[in-house]
Structures are given as C-alpha cells and as structure tokens.
C-alpha cells in the first residue's frame, strides 16, 4: 500500500478513490484525529496548541503568518510522508481565509518540488469526464504497485 497525499486534503472523492483502489489516503482528517486523540491541555476546537506554529517553521519561514505555520504543522509531515500525490486543480471548496489560501499554495509547491509520482486533474463536468477521471486515477494508482 502506497501513501497517497490528496489535494484538497478534505476531498471525499479522492479519499474514497485512493482507499477503494487499495492504497492509503493522507488527508487532513488523519492529522486532526491524531491531535483529537492525544491527551494534554484543552485547546478547542482542533487541539491546535501554540506549539504547532513552532513546528511549522520547518516548512515556512518565521515571517510567514502563524496561521500558515500552524496549518503546515498538520500538512507538512504528511507531505514528507507521501509517496505519491493526486492534485485537483480547480478545487474551489478548499478556498477559505488567506491562511488557508496561502497554505494551499505552499502545499502544492512542496508537492511539485518533491520527486514523487503526481497526478493533476480537474473535477469532472459531465459523465464522459467522469469516466476519464476515474480511469486516470485507477491507472495512476495501479501503476504505483503494492495495492492491497
């Protein structure tokens, strides 16, 4: 099983496709679950503590806003762990505040810099697009090997 980073990291479709075709999706839920299930001091709602922006310094410089660095402490380790990536380029749903927007740009930059197999797609807009979309993902994931 290959660890596949999905972008948008909250995508239902990509998360399902990767798991369905026998690999492990790396999504934001995994990083959030890790924090939600770790005992410590209460820091609602996401258990993000002041330590997270410090950890984010590994991926973003100190002058980058703390919001971006805090988010990168969730996504950065997963980007490093990823052995492949599927990126949807017209994912309007991942648009949020400026912190989200800049983090998204940084995630995509880090993925493009990394020497791993990548698949770039856009959301299907009709049934024939849907067939091509699913076939492209299946071909890509089968090509990675090691499917469960």
């Amino acid at each position, binding site marked *: 099983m290959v660890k596949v980073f999905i972008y948008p990291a909250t995508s239902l479709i990509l998360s399902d496709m990767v798991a369905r075709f026998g690999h492990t999706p790396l999504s934001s839920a995994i990083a*959030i679950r890790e924090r939600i*299930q770790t005992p410590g001091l209460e820091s609602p709602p996401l258990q993000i503590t002041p330590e997270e922006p410090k950890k984010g310094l590994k991926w973003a410089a100190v002058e980058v806003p703390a919001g971006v660095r805090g988010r990168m402490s969730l996504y950065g380790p997963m980007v490093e762990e990823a052995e492949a990536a599927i990126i949807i380029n017209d994912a309007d749903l991942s648009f949020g505040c400026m912190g989200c927007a800049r983090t998204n740009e940084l995630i995509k930059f880090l993925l493009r810099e990394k020497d791993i197999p990548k698949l770039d797609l856009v959301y299907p807009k009709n049934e024939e697009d*849907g067939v*091509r979309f699913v*076939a492209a993902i299946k071909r890509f994931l089968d090509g990675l090997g090691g499917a469960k």
Partner: protein
Amino acid sequence: MTNYTPVYPGTVTKYVIVESFTITPADLAIRAYEIAGEVIVKETCFGLVINGKEEDVTRIITELRRIDPDHIFTKDRGFPPGDARRCRASLGGARPGFHGIEYEMQILPYVSHGLAEIRKRTIEEIPSPASPLEHPALDIGKLKKLMEAQEP
C-alpha cells in the same frame, strides 16, 4: 487551562456517504446495525458516521459497500460522532466541513458513472483527461465566439 482527555482513544471514525437512487441512509443504517458489533453508528442526512476499532470499521464498510459499490463512498473523519466541537446540534448552522461534502456530492453522479463504465470498457482505451497544467493558446473558434458574444 484544563486537562484534555480524549473520548474514544485508539478508534477511527469514517463517513459512509450514499448517493444512490435505490439506497437511502436509513437502509444503510439498518444493515450497519445488523453487523455492527462494538461500534457506534450514527445516521445522518447524507449517510452514516461509524466509529470504532479500525478492523471493525473496515469490516462494516466492506460489507456496506457490497450493497451498491458504485454509489457508496467513504472518507476519514477526525472527530468522533456527536462531538460537541463539531456537532451542529451544539453549534447551530451547517457543520464545518459539510459544505465540502455538499460540493463534491454534486460531482458524485459522474464519478459513479465512471466507476460503472471502467468495468465495462478496457481501461487502456479510455483517453486521459486534459492536463490542467497545460495552457493552450486560445482556439480561433472560441475567440470568434467571444467576439460575437460582445455587445455592439
């Protein structure tokens, strides 16, 4: 500062989302309850939220998928079901994250069609989608259409 103790440590939570003409979340919930064992199953408007040990949740999802494999989708969730930090019963309005699912649910019929078709057709013969990273020059036909669409 207060201490934080996780509610269901060592468990996983997954969404099961149904976008089908023949299966409703209630049908899935009944089937899930039949085979549940030691897991929490919560029915929602779009499907189910299942929480429990990873192997139990995987077993139930594998079983549920068999009902309608092309129309049942799954996704990880960070919070357990009914968590006050996320549940709309305590927050009001749509749950954070719902809008993402709502957006992708409009696309699920095309994906379901694709999943059905790749079993009927040879996958190598299906052309690849156009790469979004390529920016081709503006097609002359499209330019003409744009010019004609201009107000005089």
